[in-house]
């Protein structure tokens, strides 16, 4: 008897293996299909409406052709800046607390709260900020929009910051402390510095995530067809403009909604590429 005998069992095993491999591969490829579909439709329907005016002009009044979404593009950037002002410091410092200080039971509570908040539907965030900020201040505003996006970012950034800080080997903390460096400086100048790429990645991913949020902005930023220079006034945002245009009855607005969607997607994709570049290890051994 020798081991090379090809029994029927051998062929059945080969067949099963091939079958499972195909099934897993097909499922994995399924992830690509929706992305390809989205890009296909956006390019097909949106590219035609993309022109210089789109990036530089205000929306035209109903019935007039042309115009652009310049105010919405700028508005989204403003909202992201406001959101970052709230979300980045609170999220990063909170993550530092969870990883470096803190008490195990308190940390458990904070983690549980952050994880629960990460699962809260964004429309609920919008309603809460509507009640807490918009109603008391008697009006929709850029500020309220920035606050709601910032609040959504806080738990996201907090958890990713904590996770990348925990990846920093304990040996670096001990080495720094053993040099007589204070705990605060050890954390800020050694530990956070070591994990900085990961922290920035978390921030960028959180920004990309809230850049496309629409529902919370309906209750807060509301949208605006003109330039807005004041934090207390409603402000336009790409997702809002896309939403408003796509439910309108006008063919021209539909095209612009597609173009806006394309711009938003490219913006988010750009952030993701930035993350990839950032997390790529540029310093290989002996570089």
């Amino acid at each position, binding site marked *: 008897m020798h081991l090379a005998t090809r029994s029927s069992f051998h062929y059945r095993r080969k067949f099963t293996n091939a079958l499972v491999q195909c099934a897993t591969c097909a499922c994995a490829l399924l992830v690509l299909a929706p992305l390809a579909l989205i890009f296909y439709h956006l390019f097909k329907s949106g590219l035609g409406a993309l022109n210089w005016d789109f990036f530089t002009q205000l929306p035209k009044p109903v019935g007039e052709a042309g115009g652009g979404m310049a105010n919405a593009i700028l508005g989204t950037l403003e909202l992201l800046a406001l959101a970052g002002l709230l979300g980045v410091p609170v999220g990063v410092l909170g993550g530092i607390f969870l990883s470096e200080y803190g008490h195990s039971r308190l940390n458990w509570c904070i983690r549980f709260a952050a994880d629960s908040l990460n699962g809260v539907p964004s429309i609920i965030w919008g309603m809460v900020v509507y009640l807490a900020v918009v109603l008391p201040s008697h009006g929709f505003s850029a500020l309220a929009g920035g606050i709601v996006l910032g609040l959504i970012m806080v738990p996201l950034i907090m958890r990713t910051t904590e996770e990348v800080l925990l990846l920093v*080997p304990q*040996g*670096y903390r*001990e*080495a*720094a*402390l*053993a*040099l*007589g*460096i*204070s705990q605060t*400086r*050890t954390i800020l*100048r*050694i530990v956070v*510095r*070591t994990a*900085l790429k990961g922290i920035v990645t978390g921030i960028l991913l959180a920004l990309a995530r809230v850049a496309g949020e629409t529902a919370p902005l309906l209750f807060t930023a509301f949208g605006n067809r003109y330039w807005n220079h004041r934090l207390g006034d409603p402000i336009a945002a790409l997702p809002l403009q896309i939403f408003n245009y796509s439910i309108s009855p006008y063919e021209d607005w539909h095209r612009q909604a597609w173009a806006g969607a394309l711009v938003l997607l490219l913006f988010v994709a750009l952030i993701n590429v930035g993350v990839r570049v950032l997390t790529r290890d540029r*310093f290989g*051994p*002996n*570089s």
Partner: protein
Amino acid sequence: MTNPERLATLPPPASQALRDVEAAGGTSARPAANELALSVRQLSVFFGRTQVLKGVSLDAPARAVTAIIGPSGCGKSTFLRSLNRMNDLVPGARVEGQIRLFGQEITGKAVEPAAVRRRVGMVFQKSNPFPTMSVADNVTVGLRLNGQHRRAELAERMEQALVMAALWDEVKDRLHAAATSLSGGQQQRLCIARALAVQPEVLLMDEPASALDPLATAKIEDLIFELKSKYTIVIVTHNMQQAARVSDYTAFFYLGELVEYGTTRRIFTHPVKKQTEDYVTGRFG
């Protein structure tokens, strides 16, 4: 100096007093001829309910190498980490007893751990240069983050430390390369340079060569031999040959207690306690 030569030139017992204490069966030694760098009295360390060190008393003479040997879990590292207050970082750790550094008390809440650590440097088992910094920045980090910013001074202290750590010739042309681009042995000497740059009085070494190949180990041992003319060194090692090669005094720890302490030559040739003899002859541990 090669290793056999070094073994042959081990210093004689420090003093009559040392021998007297040992002859009396005491576990504490007081080499009177030398200045004392560290004087430990009745040191006990608890982690939660577990007592890891049980009333250890030991004197480490200045400008000499004291080796701590013993089987795993005997409290060697805990003892070493008590000397620069690193046990303070362990949640639930409690330290009792007294440690004096050149006569000054360094235990207790009134003493700032960071101040102790600036005087008692430490080198760890696993080399841990900061990966985000260059070779030069790694050496000066202790100075910079303790408030020293004068460039000329930093450059001078960096070169001094690298020369002392016998690394200058190997890295002087790539001071601004990433520290992680150095070899394992170079990284460990970089960590020694980093500890030396803040000019401590005592250098603690926790198995500094256990992750290195024999050649890199020999370099570290040569370095220890050079450094003891200026520094007091306390080294924890699993490697008894290494203790015999580099140290002047050896303390044998077992189950959290100091079993025997004396000159390295005596511990390895005429141990008083049976446990010590069994350990250094390789019968257990």
